[in-house]
Structure formats: structure tokens, C-alpha cells
């Protein structure tokens, strides 16, 4: 459904996206994580052809994203982190403006979502809270039978209740197995609840693109006393944090667990946040 191959983009300011590749299959949610400034929004802009790539290939629905731009975008629903609407318009006016762009626009679906999100279509956009704008954006994205939903930080700046609501909506959407969701965030706890796959980007480089199960199998957090570590053991960690009372580190290859005495260390499954923290540290 979404296939990125060796995608690169270099900016004059020095930042670059370096030959990244990943795939998203139909019917799954892929979380796209990375710290602020890692390149998440840039990659989304490249996918949406808002930015010109330097090299690489982007295929959506098996079609080249530039050659078939109109056709592809007709099948994509998008939600961005900021409001990009005409603030003086009401939601109804904004909807009427957007509707003619899509060949498969469905007013019934739009009204269903507006009711579900408790949005009054006659309210001006400038009167909406950030959460309401996000819901309106989502209602627009979901009202033209989109097969791929691309979201850039949809939950950032939202309170936990709104975030949970958005995640529930996404979870409901994905019950229709024809739809795929690509969802960038730096709030990794959101993804632990709903993502099937996670792609992690840091400094314009892909660190990994794996299923949640693979991630949970691949990494371990090891905690132990300060006297347990020597130089050879230290090298095994992807990232490590040492204090006077002990250490805590991220181990990538769980085969290496046998090198630690099981009685001496505490072994835990890491959260995505742990993985992000330690890999960012080592990078």
C-alpha cells in the first residue's frame, strides 16, 4: 500500500533524509516515531509530494506518487498537526470547499462523523479548540472513502481524553481491513495501544521498521548493580545509563542475555520510549 525505497532528500541547511526504506501493508497501522527534528514531517511531506525528493522511490497503491498524484491523493485522507483551514470559515463552508476535490466524497459519512465528534458545522473554525480542529480534520479525512490515512502528529498538544478518543477512532477505522494508517508521533505510548508496525527515524536515518511483536521480542532492558559491568559487556548495549547505584541499558540481541547472570540482573521488556531514549543516546 505504501512503499518507500531508498528515499533521500538533502536541505541547504544541512539536514537530510538518508536513503530510508519501509513498507506499510493494507489493513495495518504503522507508527512513525522519532524525536523532534528527526525528519518525520519531512518524510510525510515527501510522501504527499509537498517536497521534491532528491532520489528514491515512493509508491502508493503500487503507483508512482508523482506520475499518479491526483489519483493517489484522491484515495488518501490526511491529518496534520496544525490547523491549515480558513479560520473565518464555518466547518460547513470549509467542507463545501473541500468536497468538490474528491470524486468519492460521502456527505452521509461526513455528517455521521460530525455527529459522533459532537461538532456543530455552523461554528467558525477560529472558535474551535485544538482538539475540535483535529476531530474536524479527521472527519474530512474520513469522508471520501480513503484507503490510506496519513497523520502527522495528530495527538500532539491534545489532552489525554482527546488523545484517547482519537486513538479509539483510529482503532475503529482499522477494523475495515482495506484501510491502512500511517501515523507519526513522538508520544510513543499512543502507539503501544494501537500500532501493528513501528518505524523509527532519527536524524534522517531509519533505525528500524518492525512489527510491534518483533520489537518486543528483539529488545530488552537490563538493570543491575554497578560492579557487574566490564568493558566487553558495556559494548553489548545499544545505549546505557550508569549511576552510582547501578546501570540500566537497552540490549538489542537477546542472545546476549546469557552473558549476564540471571540472578544478578533485572530483565524487562522495553517501552517504545525506552527504545527511543537509548537509541537516541547512542546515536
Amino acid at each position, binding site marked *: 500500500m505504501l512503499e518507500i525505497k531508498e528515499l533521500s532528500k538533502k*536541505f541547504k541547511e544541512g539536514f537530510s533524509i538518508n536513503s530510508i526504506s519501509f513498507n506499510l501493508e493494507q489493513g495495518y497501522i504503522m507508527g512513525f516515531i522519532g524525536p523532534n527534528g528527526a525528519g518525520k514531517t519531512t518524510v510525510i*511531506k515527501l510522501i*504527499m*509530494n*509537498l*517536497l*521534491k525528493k532528491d532520489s528514491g522511490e515512493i509508491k502508493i497503491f503500487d503507483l508512482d506518487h508523482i506520475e499518479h*498524484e*491526483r*489519483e493517489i*491523493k*484522491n484515495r*488518501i485522507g*490526511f491529518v*496534520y498537526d*496544525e490547523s*491549515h*483551514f*480558513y*479560520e*473565518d*470559515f464555518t466547518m460547513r*463552508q470549509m467542507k*463545501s*470547499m*473541500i468536497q*468538490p*476535490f*474528491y*470524486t468519492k466524497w460521502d456527505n452521509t459519512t461526513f455528517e455521521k462523523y460530525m455527529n459522533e465528534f459532537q461538532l456543530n458545522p455552523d461554528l467558525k473554525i477560529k472558535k474551535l479548540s485544538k482538539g475540535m480542529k483535529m476531530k474536524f480534520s479527521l472527519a474530512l479525512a474520513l469522508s471520501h472513502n480513503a484507503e490510506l490515512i496519513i497523520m502527522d502528529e495528530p495527538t500532539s498538544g491534545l489532552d489525554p481524553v482527546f488523545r484517547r478518543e482519537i486513538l479509539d477512532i483510529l482503532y475503529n477505522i482499522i477494523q475495515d481491513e482495506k484501510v491502512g494508517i500511517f501515523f507519526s508521533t513522538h508520544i510513543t505510548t499512543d502507539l503501544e495501544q494501537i500500532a501493528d508496525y513501528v518505524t523509527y527515524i532519527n536524524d534522517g536515518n531509519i533505525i528500524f521498521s518492525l512489527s510491534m511483536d518483533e520489537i518486543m521480542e528483539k529488545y530488552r532492558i537490563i538493570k543491575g548493580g554497578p560492579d557487574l559491568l566490564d568493558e566487553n559487556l558495556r559494548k553489548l548495549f545499544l545505549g546505557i545509563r550508569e549511576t552510582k547505584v547501578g546501570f540500566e541499558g537497552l540490549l538489542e540481541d537477546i542472545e546476549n542475555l546469557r552473558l549476564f547472570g540471571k540472578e544478578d540482573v533485572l530483565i524487562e521488556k522495553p517501552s517504545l520510549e525506552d527504545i527511543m531514549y537509548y537509541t537516541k543516546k547512542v546515536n
Partner: protein
Amino acid sequence: MLALIKKDFRLVTTGKYNLVFILSYVPFLLMVSGFDSRAKFMYLVIVMTFAYMITYTTFSYDYSNKTEIYIESLPVTKKDIVRGKYLFSILIFFISVFYASIYMGIINLILKIDFIVFNLSVVIGTFIIYLLLMGVALPIYYKLPPKIGNFFSIFVYVFLLNMLTFNVNDLDNVFKMGVLSNYGGIIGVVIGIVVFIFSSYLSVHIYRNKTR
């Protein structure tokens, strides 16, 4: 592309301020000129400034609301966006001609004065200047940051208007613009259209390579 043009029409016709502008624009300009029906340029100034300001307003809305990213994400290409804007600016010119003619006709009836309501040679002359103006102004809007682009476009507008119409003093022989006025202005229209089309290619190139 039709959806893009519709979008721009909605932008400039939605909201109280826009409607107030559309309704009060002609009386305001006539008031400034002292309702002097001998002012030969009024028709030209009304049509051209109205069309120019309406086109500019659409850029201004997109800039102030940061909507460019959203519009570009809709099922359109960058080329569609630029071509749509060029087409919109032409449509708005002809709407301005219609609007100014109707409005000034009504004013003539009410105030019993004699403003020019419609004159083909004035429309042709205005169209030539308008094509040249937009041919220069639109790539500037796409190339430069909005505030600087706006400043330069206004400069181009004032400069072109003055340069091309400073010697207009007789409506029967309007727009003495050298070669542009040959064959009843046909040469001027052809040159204007060529400049306008070339300008649209330039704007597409600029817009495609724009980095946000």
C-alpha cells in the same frame, strides 16, 4: 482545476468583509475621484484594480491561514494549483468588466451622470495591461516571501498603470501604447497572452521547486 477555481471564488465571496468590499468598492473609488464623469481612467482603474485585488486576496488568505499545505495535499498537482490561479485571474477580469459595467450603469441612472459604462477599446486596453501586470505579478507572488512579494507586486501595478496609461486623454483613441495598440489592440492582446502563458510556465517551475 475547477475545484480550485471554485475554492478561490468561495474565498472572495464568503464573509461580511468581502461582501462589504465588493459592494462599496465602486462608490468608494468614484467618491475619491469626486464623481467626475470626465475622469477617463475610472473604468480602467475600477476594472483592473478590482480584478487585481481579488486575485491578491486569494493569495493573502492562503498566506494568513497557512492553507497551502492543505490545498497541495488535496487531489491536485502543483501545476493545477498555479494554472488554476492564472485561470481564476482571467475569469475575475471578465467578471470585473461585467460588475463595473452594471454598477456604473446603475450609478448613471441614479445620479443622472455620464460615466463610461462599457467601451470595447477601453476593455481591450485594460485587458492588455492586466495580462502584462498579472504576467509579472504572479511569478513574484510565487517566488518571494508573501510580504515582500506583495510589496513588489504593488510596485509593478503602480508602475505599469502609470507607464502605459499616462498619455491617455482621448477615449476615441484610447491606450496609445505604441505597438500594443496596433490593429485595434490585437497585437497588444497577443503579446499580453504570450507574456501571460510564459509567466504561467515560470510560476509552475517556481512553485514546484519551492521548499517549505
